[in-house]
């Protein structure tokens, strides 16, 4: 951060011109000089110093009191000069941090990336948008050789970098589970132990795990304290809450999870979400779950991917395009 010396001749010329003409042009040039000085780390006391010198050259008879008072002003400006330097230093540091975070965010994207599987007979839509740079929500599809489809959806307390780190841990634990570990309740029980052992006591994760088996067209699922999703029954044209009780991951070391199973008929839908959807602020109030469902219903005639994107855009608009929490929505529809 080398500072450039202010050009005394130029300054004197500008000052003289202004004192003679009181011309706005000279003031405009002073503004330009001020900007340039900030850019080049010229501190206020240096400008005052140059000002004193220029003034003395223009007015050799300058009263001693004026000279002294300007030196007094110079002294008073020293801390501002330091503050400027500190600000510039912090700005450089911040931009270094920013770029580190952006590298981390990209890494997270790669690490946690999941491919939405193309499965005959199923229409799947999924969207997950972080409130900040790093996502504390996570969803993952596990499509196996035996054609079962596992769906994991998790939400870490808080957001940002700590949440993202905890999420990577969940993803790697799941990857390391043996292949025959498919039962939702068993998966949650195993993850609970991992989380309980490895994270801060005040940190926890909510998670929903579902397993679709195309052979008998069943959907088995278990929930670790996750925001309930919705189930759409085509036959009765009715939406119901997906009921599943279970403790959040990380609260105790021996939680067990009940597994439910439901038969999926043609046209039925499974709607999964995180509380970034239901905790959506509308000015001073929150959106009620019924309203969330109303919004989802409005777009359910669309293909699943279009539907989730429209719902997201709807809520984004409602919150003035500024999400307060990470937002994740998944819709799975069994084709007619």
């Amino acid at each position, binding site marked *: 951060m080398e500072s450039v010396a202010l050009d005394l001749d130029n300054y004197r010329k500008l000052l003289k011109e202004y004192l003679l003409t009181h011309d706005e042009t000279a003031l405009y040039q002073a503004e330009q000089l001020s900007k340039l000085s900030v850019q080049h780390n010229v501190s206020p006391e240096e400008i005052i110093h140059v000002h004193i010198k220029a003034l003395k050259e223009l007015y050799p008879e300058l009263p001693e009191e004026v000279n002294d008072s300007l030196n007094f002003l110079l002294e008073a400006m020293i801390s501002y000069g330091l503050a400027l330097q500190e600000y510039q230093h912090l700005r450089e540091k911040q931009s270094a941090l920013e770029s580190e975070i952006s590298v981390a965010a990209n890494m997270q994207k790669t690490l946690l990336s999941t491919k939405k599987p193309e499965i005959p007979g199923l229409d799947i839509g999924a969207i997950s948008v972080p409130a900040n740079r790093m996502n504390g929500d996570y969803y993952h599809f596990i499509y196996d050789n035996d054609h079962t489809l596992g769906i994991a959806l998790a939400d870490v*307390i*808080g957001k940002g970098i700590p949440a993202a780190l905890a999420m990577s841990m969940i993803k790697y634990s799941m990857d390391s589970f043996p292949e025959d570990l498919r039962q939702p309740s068993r998966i949650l029980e195993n993850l609970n132990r991992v989380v309980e052992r490895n994270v801060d006591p*005040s940190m926890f994760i909510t998670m929903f795990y579902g397993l679709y088996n195309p052979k008998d067209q069943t959907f088995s699922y278990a929930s670790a*304290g996750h*925001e309930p999703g919705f189930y759409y029954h085509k036959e009765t044209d009715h939406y119901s809450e997906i009921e599943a*009780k279970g*403790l959040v991951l990380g*609260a105790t070391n021996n939680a067990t999870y009940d597994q439910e199973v439901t038969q999926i008929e043609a046209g039925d839908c499974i709607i999964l979400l995180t*509380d970034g959807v239901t905790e959506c602020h509308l000015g001073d109030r929150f959106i009620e779950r019924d309203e969330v469902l109303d919004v989802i219903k409005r777009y359910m005639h669309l293909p699943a991917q279009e539907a989730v994107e429209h719902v997201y855009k709807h809520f984004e608009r409602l919150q003035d395009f500024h999400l307060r929490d990470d937002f994740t929505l998944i819709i799975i529809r069994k084709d007619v």
Partner: protein
Amino acid sequence: MNINLDVDVTEKENETTLHLKGEIDAYTAPLLKEKLLPLTAKQDHHIIVDLAEVSYMDSTGLGVFISALKSTKEHDAQLKLVNLQERVHRLFKITSLDTIITIETTVRGGN
């Protein structure tokens, strides 16, 4: 938006009651943690948290109560939450934390 949390502490022998007022979120949770956690580390201490005037709580708040619960178990202390508003109570129900944290929806009058 500038919403705060007031924590009013009433101490009795072997029992402390925290009256909370406001919102518990990422900004106010550290204050709650600072007041609550030291109490949970007192052997055999009874802690009552009155949430009657808490209109909103997010998952950060739940996290504070989970860590408080873990700490009470280590020190044989007791934690009880009372007078939860519906919206706040729902959070404890969804997360099933109501199965491991003692919650009373009505509190007995003064003795």
